[in-house]
């Protein structure tokens, strides 16, 4: 079984440390082979390796292609798509890791 999807990264600093951890952890929960590539480069990398996912250094606005091959490929692709779409579930309180100095010293 093969499945594929495309999504634009809208999280403001892109696929950085915390999102990469979440992304690879989620990918690892599936047994199928999962790969991603960015901006139509046709270079596919292992979605379960944080070193490689982080290594893409994909900023906000990057077009991410996700494909899976094997058991539950559809579910895997849908789950990862959802995670990226939800900005990696980074909401209230989770953002300061990337905040800028000008807004940092909250009074």
């Amino acid at each position, binding site marked *: 079984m093969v499945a594929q999807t495309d999504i634009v990264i809208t999280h403001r600093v892109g696929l950085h440390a*915390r999102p990469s951890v979440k992304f690879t952890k989620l990918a690892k929960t599936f047994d199928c082979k999962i790969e991603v590539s960015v901006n139509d480069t046709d270079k596919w990398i292992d979605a379960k390796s944080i070193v490689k996912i982080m290594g893409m250094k994909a900023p906000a606005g990057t077009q991410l292609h996700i494909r899976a091959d094997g058991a539950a490929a559809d579910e895997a692709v849908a789950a990862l798509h959802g995670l990226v779409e939800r900005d990696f579930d980074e909401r209230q309180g989770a953002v300061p890791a990337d905040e800028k*100095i*000008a807004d*940092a010293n909250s*009074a």
Partner: protein
Amino acid sequence: MPTPLEIKGQLASEGFAAGPIWLAQDRLVPSYERKDTWQAEAQALADCVATASGQTAELVENAQGDAADILEFQLAMLEDDTFVEAATELIEAGLGADMAWREVLDDEIAGYEASDDEYFRARAADLRDVKDRVLVALTGAAVEIIPKGSIYLADDIAPSLFLSHDWSGGGLALRDGSVTGHVAMLARQRGIPTLVGLGDFVCPENVSALLHGGLQTLIVSPSEQIRQQFDLARMEFDAARLRAQNFSDRPAVTDDGTAISVMVNIADPAEVENIPIQHVDGVGLMRTEFLFGHASGLPGEEIQYLAYKKVLDWSRGKPVTIRTVDAGGDKPIRGFTEDEMNPFLGMRGIRLTLKNPDIFRLQIRALLRAGVHGQLKVMLPMVAVPEELDETIKQFEVEASALAQEGVAYQMPKIGIMVEIPSVAILPNRFSKASFLSIGSNDLTQYVLAASRDNGKLADLAKADDPAVLALIANVAHYGAKHGVDVSLCGDAGSDVSIIPKLLQAGVTTLSVAASRIGLVKSTIADIDLGSDRKSRLFDEAHADFSHKLGVLHSDNKK
């Protein structure tokens, strides 16, 4: 008595610290013993990576919040086989485990350091930490123990070392470092005073030093006089911080009862997640350059629309002022801005967008569509003549009718302009089509005084409370009050506690400031008494001419 030494850096985390200098030790003594076979080398590496993972996992358990996130990221990196596999190939080719690990990680670190994106550059520190942790396990090097209350002077510091030490009473002085790095972020959250980018200088161990966040300076072997000034500044800082905390959620009112609007400046839509909407009267400036700054190219309409919608959804009907892309000057954008001799007087702001209709069109469409989600105001940067405003309004109308034909929902926003070029501040009445005016005090100051804001040597010249600048601000405020046009100020002067009273005197009633300054600005406003001056305020002098105002402000300033 050694000669005092003052080194200026960048402020990564506010505050003041006094203590002895502790020089970072080189933790990694190359004492690794080679094994007999490459298989034994590979095994040694695998074991030490497992040891480092175990240590990191232990730290994760005891950490919370962002510290836990950082350690978890490092742990995930250690548990990933990619590095070990690459290093094992090198070991098979004849390298020792330590050299192989070093080479693989150094390569990876170099890749991060070369990134265009500051965020990814800053992650190099995490990889260095991962590298060091394994090398420490391989070589048995000791982990540094830093005396409490000292000022730690180093090139940079590993997040794990930062997290393993209690910094209370002390501070960090880094020769390299980054204000967006993990350590800088952690230091801000813990309130540990930190300077970065201090550069190379010779400093003896254990001498007394002051870390002065206000001056962004490290002072080594200070004189008694400097120490007294430092103590005073520190007391003021502590008192102001304490007081500001109590003001964030109150409306801003002066001592004599004049209501002031305090809005927030944001550079990125995600920031609003940490700003309670009830703390502000809206967004006075939302920059859009963040959308354009990425290596992946210029943003499409959809990604812009989503970014604007996000802030409007958060605003609960309060006004949100979005500035069209202000590229050029000190904000070059690849594929958009031009190389030129004098960028501050060149193609920037509205000049650049009007010259690039294909790019501007997408932003206009995204803004028109976002307009249905709240009270949107669109602000044009670097307007010098009314024709630029006219042309932009025309383009909004063209795109609006295109959207109407396509059957796409839109709302025409209020369109106003920045007041940063003196031509606007001198004759604001020429811009009667502007629905509102927002004073960009940083650029206005540098254009009025012909003094670059980035050159420290000109700091005494480039002051937003120069009488000439204040007179122009008063002129704009007066025009706005007389004609019912909203006037606000969104530059750094709006959060400068020494300048805020002068701005209010000049008739400014809306300030837009960084989120971190909201409490401080409100507490400053609460102390201002406009009462006795109210009748003679520049703002109320309906017939006062321009030169007269200049005179009044000048004499006020001398008091």
